[in-house]
């Protein structure tokens, strides 16, 4: 498995199925770990950073899942490849843009990504399609347990797993779901959800994590508190209470829209389909916005000949780095807008 093989299809998390898939796009869990006896990354010399990279690389590739893993030396990778990894949610933007020795080990189906030398020495992530947080947590625990057989992680009897930023200390666990909330947005109820989320000490972010705008009605909701609760408690608060209630709000809003203003919905969806099928210039923001509405239409069964899998794939494949890889040439934003519109027309007029 190589990086170049990834571009033609979408990763597991965009497969377009799984529980509560109409609202929950994907589920993600992340654990932050640091090697004991080593400074955190910012205080490491370059030699130490290399040592960490080599040591962790050897260990993560020695695990039971190793045959299916491939490793990307992120420092040596070209800019386009690094952006590709960001678009696929396999590394963070900070990881892509840094300059020190670092890398990522990825499983063949892309559900597992182990970032080395991000903000912490090791950031492990499991990303799954639909609402599968419990499963994702099981996966990540197994990986963490296996690594702990061979590595000592920095641990404090009072503060738990130690992290470079004190906001991650304790479990080092960040649990998040990517939600598609077009109806709450359309009906102006999204602010209410933000308030509810902040009362529950949750953070709401855009599609690509920290500091990104929520585009195309996609919102990433995650826990802020990592100290003072067990991992199971953090996960079960999400699984049992929070996510089901957000899903319910969105579903109700969709039902209400459909009952009260079906023509308004149908109009928005039909216009989006028409634009995607005929426009000659398309920015990635506009594509995201239109695909979001088509996805809503498909979920409500208000549109013919659009399957969720294709829509999901297009979310990813029309992003700048993917588009350039698929078409195998570097392009300016203007050239991309034309190429993106071409690609969308080709994909969507087939069905």
């Amino acid at each position, binding site marked *: 498995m190589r990086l170049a093989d990834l571009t033609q299809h979408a990763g597991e998390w965009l497969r377009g199925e799984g529980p509560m898939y109409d609202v929950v796009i994907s589920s993600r869990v992340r654990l932050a770990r640091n090697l004991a006896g080593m400074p955190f990354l910012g205080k490491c010399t370059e030699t130490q950073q290399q040592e960490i990279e080599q040591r962790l690389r050897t260990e993560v590739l020695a695990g039971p899942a190793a045959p299916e893993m491939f490793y990307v030396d992120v420092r040596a990778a070209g800019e386009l490849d690094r952006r590709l990894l960001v678009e696929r949610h396999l590394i963070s933007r900070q990881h892509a843009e840094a300059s020190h020795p670092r890398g990522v080990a990825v499983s063949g189906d892309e559900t597992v990504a182990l970032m080395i030398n991000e903000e912490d020495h090791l950031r492990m992530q499991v990303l799954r399609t639909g609402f599968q947080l419990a499963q994702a947590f099981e996966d990540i625990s197994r990986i963490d347990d296996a690594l702990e057989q061979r590595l000592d992680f920095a641990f404090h009897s009072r503060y738990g797993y130690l992290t470079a930023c004190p906001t991650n200390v304790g479990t080092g666990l960040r649990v998040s779901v990517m939600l598609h909330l077009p109806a709450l947005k359309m009906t102006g109820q999204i602010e209410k959800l933000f308030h509810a989320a902040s009362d529950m000490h949750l953070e709401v972010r855009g599609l690509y994590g920290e500091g990104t705008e929520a585009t195309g009605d996609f919102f990433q909701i995650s826990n*802020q508190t990592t100290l003072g609760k067990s991992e199971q408690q953090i996960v079960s608060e999400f699984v049992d209470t929070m996510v089901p209630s957000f899903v319910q709000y969105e579903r109700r809003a969709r039902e209400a829209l459909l009952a009260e203003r079906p023509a308004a919905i149908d109009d928005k969806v039909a216009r989006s389909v028409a634009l995607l099928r005929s426009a000659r210039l398309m920015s990635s923001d506009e594509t995201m916005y239109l695909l979001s509405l088509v996805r809503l239409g498909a979920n409500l069964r208000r549109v013919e000949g659009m399957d969720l899998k294709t829509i999901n794939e297009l979310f990813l494949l029309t992003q700048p780095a993917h588009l350039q890889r698929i078409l195998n040439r570097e392009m300016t934003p203007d050239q991309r807008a034309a190429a993106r519109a071409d690609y969308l027309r080709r994909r969507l007029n087939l069905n």
Partner: protein
Amino acid sequence: MKNQCDKCGKPATVYLTEIVGGQKIEKHLCEHCAAAEGITIKSNVPISQLLEDFILQSAGGEDEASEPTCEVCGMTFSQFRQGGRLGCPNDYDAFAKPLAPLLERAHEGATHHMGKVPHRADSGQKKQAAILRLRAQLKAAIADEDYERAAVLRDQIKEFESS
């Protein structure tokens, strides 16, 4: 329901009912005037903001000499406040006092880890701290070009890590 702030006429977001001497007083305030009245509001503050506020709030006007410094990695507390990232695991002890309120604010008042404990936790913090110290010495030895000492330290670190 009245929707304007009693003080400035802006949209009111805070409704307060006070009983003063048996008399019921209702107040409608905007966020700004409520803050001016000393009524604290729980608002949507992202974690990064929280950290920044904390950093700004406690910045400046401190005695440099008495500032907490980590003897292992050399980081000072004001360096942490500037960058928002700690230098090494020992900082959690070196900055225990000033860090405590920040941790409580960031984690819903929590003060102790309640989750997973590594299988090898018994190998202990002492050992971890010892290795950290050795590494700091190693770094210094290399900087001084004292390679003999560096080689000895490196062996000691290896020994510790494999024990």
